[in-house]
């Protein structure tokens, strides 16, 4: 072992052994990761769906070592050690750079056994790096189906690493893997490539200085720019510059030499059966990427998804809504009257229920997105959409972030990492938040129910569903428009390319889809819930209290005998409540910004909600619930009924008429009202410039569009 491999950081800060899962995209790494750790995470079928680092821990039982807790990291899928996109760089950095915090003690290499040649390419690169490795031949079920035969014992001997047969969709081979892993740690291994083929004076020089193996020296020469150790980086940079080392040419040479050796190896370990069985994928592709049917099916799928989200969730949502009405009435009657009861029911519960009723819709949305990714259909969508996307400065791969943006812009923006071209990636990031995310869904649902009747048109279509789909469509069109503008503004840094694999179609893995939905809903409830409870409490305080002189004046006004003669006691209570809300701090704030939003048709109550929505858009519903609860002692009607009954004091007509509702929906469709999105854009672009640009252009777009909608409709 050499100096680089025996460094102290290997066992990490907590002393746990580190194991990394590596492999090509779509090799089933993530499914194996789930099986080993039981940790929930997204499993997709699109190349490069694992764009972020995911870790979990598992316990291994080994003879004399007894049970040892190890830390597992699921690396992003890659085809080689030479990075070409951001997520491949993550993988390269961790594996080549021995001083990296996540540099593993052992690599589990997951190979798609039905495509052995290409899988072995990266595998043998890792072996040559001197990384202890266990090779998992995954998807053995496919190999058997095709009638191929792999001599895995011979493969084991040739590579010098344990080979385990597995089919990640069943649990075959899992125990064998668990017992063999520990034995491999710290094992020095054979090298695969002929080191003489890549050895040059430059490599020898680096080897001498850094005290590393031939292939490691070769990697240092190719990838030194990634190193975090500044001293080593400077040294290698000097050597490389002096000798005019042409990394690309050497990498090409290495690739050819390596494949030559792999081909040779395969001639005696792989026996092909009769013609393969990829025919089903071919037949499906003939339809799904067809000139006419391809687009028609894609639109049809989107349409069905939205119809299903809207109609399937109607009944469970109604039940939840009723449940919360009953709960708040019950709580009011049980709890002793006072500030605490008001805070709990009108503040916390009102805000929380406003959001929890949307769980059915959010679960359905994530369900459909997970299926589309898991089956491999999403990759075909990229394929048929690339040309169109390119016209507006995007890439076929931008379809994934855009479609995922319908769920949540935060993971969607992260998935844009698979786009290797900087300009296309930035444009994708900038326009993705225009896609209507699940946080807007509660807002849309509430507003649509106020202004659009629930009736059936053309025999089977729900009118509310159509308006909903229209809003999503407007978001999409705005994203395309914005992309087109950005295409002219942003200067390109490098050429764009679109080379990716079309994976074989597979049946969705239901258990992993189930995990995905559970995880996303949990995240939504807890993450959004935290913010919503906090905002609800603050709001309740601000909308229940105000300058004391004014509040007292209202009490005094209605405690006169004249008032008592004029109104019934109920009327007095209701008048006091609504006048108090108007005089409260929240009311004062809303009034202060009213002149600015008045042209859009918004009153001061909406003003409060626009402000609180910046924490998260769905807070709009909670805010409305809180505002109307604070202004109304009766808690037996739902927020929807309360808003429907609201009268505009100026016109005497309904406050939430068609013009206001549509103006508000357009505002929510376009405005950048999400702190988390701005934070992730900052993290992904490493600059405040892009989140600022995004916030400014989206706000301007929202204001102008709402202005036009309201002025035209009213």
């Amino acid at each position, binding site marked *: 072992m050499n100096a680089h491999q025996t460094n102290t950081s290997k066992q990490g800060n907590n002393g746990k052994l580190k194991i990394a899962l590596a492999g090509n995209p779509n090799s089933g790494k993530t499914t194996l990761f789930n099986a080993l750790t039981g940790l929930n995470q997204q499993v997709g079928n699109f190349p490069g769906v694992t764009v972020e680092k995911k870790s979990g821990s598992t316990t291994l039982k080994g003879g004399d070592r007894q049970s040892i807790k190890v830390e597992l990291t699921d690396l992003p899928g890659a085809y080689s050690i030479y990075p070409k996109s951001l997520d491949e760089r993550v993988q390269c950095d961790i594996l080549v750079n021995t001083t990296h915090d996540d540099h593993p003690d052992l690599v589990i290499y997951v190979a798609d056994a039905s*495509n052995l040649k290409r899988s072995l390419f990266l595998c043998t690169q890792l072996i040559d790096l001197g990384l202890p490795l266990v090779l998992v031949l995954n998807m053995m079920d496919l190999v058997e189906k095709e009638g191929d035969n792999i001599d895995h014992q011979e493969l084991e001997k040739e590579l010098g690493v344990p080979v385990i047969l597995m089919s990640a969709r069943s649990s075959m081979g899992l125990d064998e893997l668990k017992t063999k892993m520990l034995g491999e740690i710290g094992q020095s291994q054979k090298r695969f490539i002929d080191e003489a083929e890549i050895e040059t004076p430059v490599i020898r020089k680096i080897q001498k200085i850094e005290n590393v193996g031939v292939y490691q020296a070769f990697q240092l020469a190719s990838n030194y720019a990634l190193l975090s150790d500044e001293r080593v980086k400077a040294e290698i940079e000097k050597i490389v510059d002096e000798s005019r080392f042409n990394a690309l040419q050497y990498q090409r040479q290495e690739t050819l030499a390596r494949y030559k050796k792999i081909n040779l190896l395969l001639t005696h370990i792989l026996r092909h059966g009769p013609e393969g069985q990829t025919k089903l994928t071919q037949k499906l592709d003939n339809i799904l990427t067809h*000139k006419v049917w391809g687009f028609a099916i894609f639109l049809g799928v989107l349409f069905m998804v939205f119809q299903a989200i809207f109609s399937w969730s109607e009944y469970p949502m109604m039940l939840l809504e009723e449940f919360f009405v009953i709960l708040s009435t019950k709580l009011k009657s049980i709890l002793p009257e006072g500030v605490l009861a008001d805070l709990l029911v009108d503040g916390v519960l009102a805000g929380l229920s406003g959001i929890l009723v949307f769980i059915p819709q959010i679960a359905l949305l994530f369900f459909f997105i997970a299926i589309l990714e898991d089956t491999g259909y999403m990759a075909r969508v990229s394929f*048929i959409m690339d040309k169109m996307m390119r016209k507006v400065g995007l890439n076929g791969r931008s379809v994934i972030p855009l479609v995922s943006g319908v769920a949540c812009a935060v993971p969607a923006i992260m998935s844009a990492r698979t786009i290797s071209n900087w300009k296309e990636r930035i444009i994708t990031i900038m326009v993705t938040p225009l896609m209507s995310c699940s946080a807007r869904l509660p807002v849309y649902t509430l507003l649509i129910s106020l202004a659009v009747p629930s009736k059936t048109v053309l025999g089977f279509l729900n009118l509310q569903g159509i308006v909903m789909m229209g809003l999503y469509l407007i978001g999409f069109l705005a994203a395309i428009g914005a992309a087109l503008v950005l295409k002219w503004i942003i200067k390109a840094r490098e050429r764009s390319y679109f*080379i990716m694999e079309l994976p074989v179609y597979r049946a969705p893995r239901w258990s992993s889809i189930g995990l995905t939905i559970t995880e996303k809903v949990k995240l939504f409830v807890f993450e959004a819930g935290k913010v919503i409870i906090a905002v609800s409490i603050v709001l309740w305080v601000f909308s229940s209290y105000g300058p004391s002189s004014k509040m007292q004046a209202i009490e005094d006004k209605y405690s006169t005998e004249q008032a008592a003669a004029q109104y019934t006691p109920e009327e007095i209570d209701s008048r006091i409540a609504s006048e108090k809300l108007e005089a409260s701090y929240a009311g004062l704030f809303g009034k202060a910004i009213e002149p600015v939003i008045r042209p859009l048709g918004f009153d001061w109550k909406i003003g409060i909600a626009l402000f609180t929505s910046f924490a998260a858009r769905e807070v709009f519903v909670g805010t409305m619930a809180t505002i109307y609860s604070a202004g109304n002692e009766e808690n037996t009607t739902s927020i929807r009924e309360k808003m429907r009954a609201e009268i505009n004091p100026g016109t005497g007509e309904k406050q939430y008429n068609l013009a206001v509702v549509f103006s508000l929906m357009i505002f929510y469709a376009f405005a950048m009202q999400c702190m988390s999105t701005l934070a992730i854009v900052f993290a992904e672009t490493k600059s405040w410039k892009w989140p600022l640009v995004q916030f400014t252009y989206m706000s301007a777009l929202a204001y102008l569009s709402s202005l036009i909608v309201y002025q035209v409709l009213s």
Partner: protein
Amino acid sequence: MLGIGEIGVIDSFEDEELSLKFLEMGCLPGETIELERIAPMGDPIAIRVGKSSLCMRKAEAAGITVKFVENGR
């Protein structure tokens, strides 16, 4: 350039930048490729190399020089 269903053998790469990417994905000189399908709008295309189906834009595919053409179907 191949037509749909036509088979060729990779000869060399004209495109310096992309050649490494192609090589890694298994497009090696001497390897047989088949033009599998063309996207609805005429671009990109999908080719079959070995066991996998790769899609790429026409401009990228133009960087692959194919030596020998026969009609596969």
